[in-house]
């Protein structure tokens, strides 16, 4: 294929990894279905190459095929993979083993699962070295060195632990140490930080960046987070339906995309501080073709706004972009990229503006929640004060264990607040537990969950799922309820055809629409959304966020939006509350929170976001781990990790949540003037 000749000036022999016209099929019910339709790229020694694209595009299959680790029903049917000049596709089992032991390594998503839960960490790391022929003693010494290399301060202690006794960041360090044991020529990173908290993610990425300078391994990185790829990779390949549709230096591709798919992908991200009132997110119409679909010409033709007759009849050529010969796009119309439709304006700002002087629809006053665990009191929420106006979106951010979900459940009454705390709806205190609330109160507050797969009854049709919610929440029955279901579905952009399908017959985005429709079945006043888009691809996420914004402007619904994605929360939320260890550390209007001054924790959280726009930020490192809520630190709970801690004060008394400007409050002993000063210049 011509693609590899256009890629960077590395030839198959010099490249650490050369993938040429790779074709992989999965056998499903006896039929071979194409997953990779001729993937070509190469990675030079010391270079980092990123593969991006939405789920199902084949990026992980490509990575696993490079190490010839395919699922049982997958096979390579064409093309070649060379690592350090050796053909991986033709290796014998023994050669492959040797190759994996000495030449190539992998780091995985979800480090907690990637290590054997029944074997001590030390033994697992040592195993990587004994495989290279080292004696037990040598290997033990090497393991110590390897763990130190990944910045583990106390390797002896870590080696004596079991994987589940380590934190997520620590686990991933150990997995990286094992991967680097053989000093590999090729290192594959498969979503290495997905599922880790923002500050831990930043820590792992920092480590990868430093280690890259210490080894000359070629890095192949898979990530759905474009910001991470931009930060870490020299070049990026954008995949769609089993083909690389665009390739080039990361910064150039992300700043000036030259394929309609890349353009669509980037536009569907909430970026550059855009808000829902300014602009709707753009989406990519249609859905990803199924594996094995017949795509004889351009793979993107069915969803492309520029597609014409040529695109349907002629295979798009590899079109070089720029004059350096390091970029290409597979598009007939790369000269017309600019025509890809601009995004629509956002929702009407006047409809969204929270009503002035109106009482809040939801109010929490002194709400705490303490769990009992083995006779220990574990405070999961401590003295939360929050208000939510009609038509307002309150974003709640914080790392895992910060109490976000407990807060949502306490609002809904799924968990009852400790006595002394009051949850009020429309200014009227309601029972702490759902069971004690009236049907009307239950109807007015609904929830959308993270994973629509487990939130919807798999045995029921969409119609039945929605019918039940309508009947339960509104008391309407029979034909009238059915009418209401149809109106509801139309509102959520579901077609009548969808109503008679089962959830498993729907895509992830459609399922989440059904889950949202379910929540809206009784015209709720408040909808609590717990990470509703984090399991979805960005173009689908964009559609869901648009939908939520539209519903809100039509019905003046208030949202409580829990997320770890700062881009999403910035786009959708009017106000943001930042939680740490069950306490609200900072709360304020979205712009104030993003512009500062900030609580030092918020500051660290904001600095940890890898930006797809490549803005330079000074990362604030947080030392240590999030303390256990069962045993919170004295004084300000953040003080042991705070880079701006003032010992003698911060470790003694807990600061109150104090207003620094109208509506913007934080828990910090440092005077606001000083914070502004500190946060203006890098630490």
């Amino acid at each position, binding site marked *: 294929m011509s693609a590899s000749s256009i890629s960077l000036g590395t030839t198959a022999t010099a490249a650490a990894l050369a993938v040429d016209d790779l074709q992989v099929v999965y056998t499903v019910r006896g039929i071979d279905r194409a997953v990779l339709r001729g993937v070509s790229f190469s990675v030079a020694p010391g270079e980092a190459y990123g593969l991006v694209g939405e789920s199902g595009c084949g990026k992980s299959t490509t990575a696993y095929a490079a190490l010839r680790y395919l699922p049982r029903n997958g096979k390579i049917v064409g093309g070649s993979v060379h690592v350090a000049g050796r053909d991986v596709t033709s290796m014998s089992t023994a050669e492959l083993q040797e190759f994996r032991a000495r030449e190539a390594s992998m780091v995985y998503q979800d480090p907690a699962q990637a290590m054997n839960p029944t074997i001590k960490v030390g033994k697992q790391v040592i195993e990587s070295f004994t495989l290279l022929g080292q004696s037990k003693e040598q290997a033990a010494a090497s393991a110590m060195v390897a763990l130190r290399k990944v910045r583990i301060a106390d390797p002896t202690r870590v080696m004596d632990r*079991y994987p589940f006794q380590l934190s997520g960041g620590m686990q991933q360090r150990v997995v990286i140490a094992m991967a680097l044991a053989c000093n590999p020529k090729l290192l594959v990173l498969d979503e290495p930080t997905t599922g880790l908290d923002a500050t831990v993610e930043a820590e792992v990425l920092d480590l990868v960046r430093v280690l890259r300078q210490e080894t000359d391994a070629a890095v192949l990185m898979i990530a759905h987070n474009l910001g991470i790829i931009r930060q870490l990779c020299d070049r990026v390949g954008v995949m769609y339906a089993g083909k690389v549709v665009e390739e080039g230096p990361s910064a150039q591709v992300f700043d000036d995309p030259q394929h309609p798919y890349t353009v669509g992908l980037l536009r569907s991200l909430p970026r550059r501080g855009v808000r829902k009132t300014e602009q709707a997110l753009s989406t990519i119409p249609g859905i990803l073709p199924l594996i094995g679909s017949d795509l004889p010409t351009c793979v993107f033709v069915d969803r492309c706004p520029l597609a014409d007759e040529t695109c349907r009849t002629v295979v798009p050529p590899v079109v070089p972009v720029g004059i350096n010969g390091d970029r290409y796009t597979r598009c007939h119309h790369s000269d017309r990229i600019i025509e890809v439709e601009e995004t629509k304006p956002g929702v009407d700002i006047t409809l969204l503006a929270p009503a002035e002087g109106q009482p809040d629809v939801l109010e929490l006053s002194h709400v705490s929640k303490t769990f009992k665990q083995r006779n220990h009191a574990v405070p999961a929420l401590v003295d939360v004060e929050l208000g939510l106006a009609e038509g307002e979106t309150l974003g709640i951010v914080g790392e895992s264990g910060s109490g976000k979900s407990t807060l949502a459940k306490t609002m809904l009454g799924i968990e009852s607040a400790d006595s002394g705390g009051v949850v009020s709806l429309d200014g009227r205190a309601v029972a702490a537990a759902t069971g004690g609330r009236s049907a009307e109160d239950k109807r007015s507050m609904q929830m959308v969950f993270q994973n629509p797969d487990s939130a919807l009854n798999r045995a029921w049709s969409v119609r039945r799922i929605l019918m039940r919610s309508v009947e339960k929440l509104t008391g309407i029955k029979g034909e009238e309820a059915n009418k209401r279901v149809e109106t509801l579905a139309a509102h959520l952009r579901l077609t009548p055809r969808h109503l008679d399908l089962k959830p498993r017959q729907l895509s992830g985005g459609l399922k989440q629409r059904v889950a949202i429709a379910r929540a809206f079945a009784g015209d709720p006043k408040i909808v609590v959304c717990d990470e509703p888009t984090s399991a979805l691809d960005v173009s689908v996420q964009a559609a869901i966020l648009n939908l939520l914004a539209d519903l809100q402007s039509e019905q003046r619904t208030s949202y409580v939006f829990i997320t770890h994605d700062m881009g999403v929360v910035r786009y959708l939320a009017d106000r943001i509350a930042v939680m740490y260890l069950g306490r609200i550390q900072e709360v304020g209007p979205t712009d104030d929170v993003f512009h500062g001054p900030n609580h030092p924790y918020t500051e660290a959280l904001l600095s940890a976001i890898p930006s797809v726009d490549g803005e330079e930020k000074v990362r604030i490192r947080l030392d240590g781990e999030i303390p256990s809520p069962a045993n919170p630190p004295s004084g300000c709970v953040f003080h042991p990790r705070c880079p701006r801690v003032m010992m003698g004060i911060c470790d003694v008394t807990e600061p109150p949540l104090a207003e620094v400007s109208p509506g913007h409050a934080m828990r910090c002993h440092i005077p606001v003037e000083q914070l502004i000063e500190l946060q203006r210049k890098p630490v």
Partner: protein
Amino acid sequence: MRRFILQRLASIVVTLWLLATIVFMLVNVLPGNVGRQILGPFAPQVEVDAFNARLGTDKPLLEQYFQSIKRIFTLDFGDSYQSGSDVLDIILPALGRSGKLALLAFIITIPISIAAGVYAARRQDKFADRVIVNAGLASSSIPEFVTAALLLSVFAVHWKLGKAFANPPEGTSLIGQLEYLLLPALAMVFAYFGYIARMTRAGVISSLMADYTRTATMKGLSSKQVMRRHVLRNALAPTITVISVQIGYLIGGIIGVEKVFNYAGLGSTMLSAVGAKDIPVLQGAVLLVGIVYMLSTLLADLLIAYLNPRVRLEAKR
């Protein structure tokens, strides 16, 4: 860990007490008079009363209950109503015989079925796997007394291989006893092979699909090393639980097999005690089975704790 074991032993004591209570209640809701039952319908009432007085079965129920509870904890179950000999002298030899049979059955079943399960898992959905899964299903869905009768008629009667009576004569050597026990043991093997093999297969398959197995493979370990060092230890926990539950069941529950081969195991002893309303024997046997059952589950939990550090460390806290 020590605390964990002590807690478990304490819960065994409580369970035994519950078990004894249930047995006592069951026995006493059965109609009939013990003395009458044993001495027959033609015995004079005076003798029946005297008999009952000797046994204590004429005392108020509550007193009888305390008596029976006391017996458990002093391990003195009294004398059999039927034969008059010490209950322990009846049930302990029966336990020994049942244990011998169960042990032989396990020695044959466990290696075969675990090996078959692992083999099937490695060839998931291929021909060999289908054969093992279906053969296992078939063998465990046939009741063991049917298998026992079949084995008896085919091997012992038709081909004259093995013995139709499992009770070896006094003084038979340990090896000699094997000949007697082999056929009933095989009947049990058939009953449990499928169960254990399928359990093993499921455990190995989920362990093979686990991320840590992928890590091990990608490290460059051979598939044998991956299996031995990383898969088996994680895969066998459910199998161990199943086996341990079966131990208790095998000791006390294989009445069908015992009957077919006319073997005087614990099961047959219980059955005849029920028929004769021989409460001391019944109580002793049920409690004995209960103890075996609970000890084998405890053993399984300890084994699992040994294999799985997470369980072990959590128990420690």
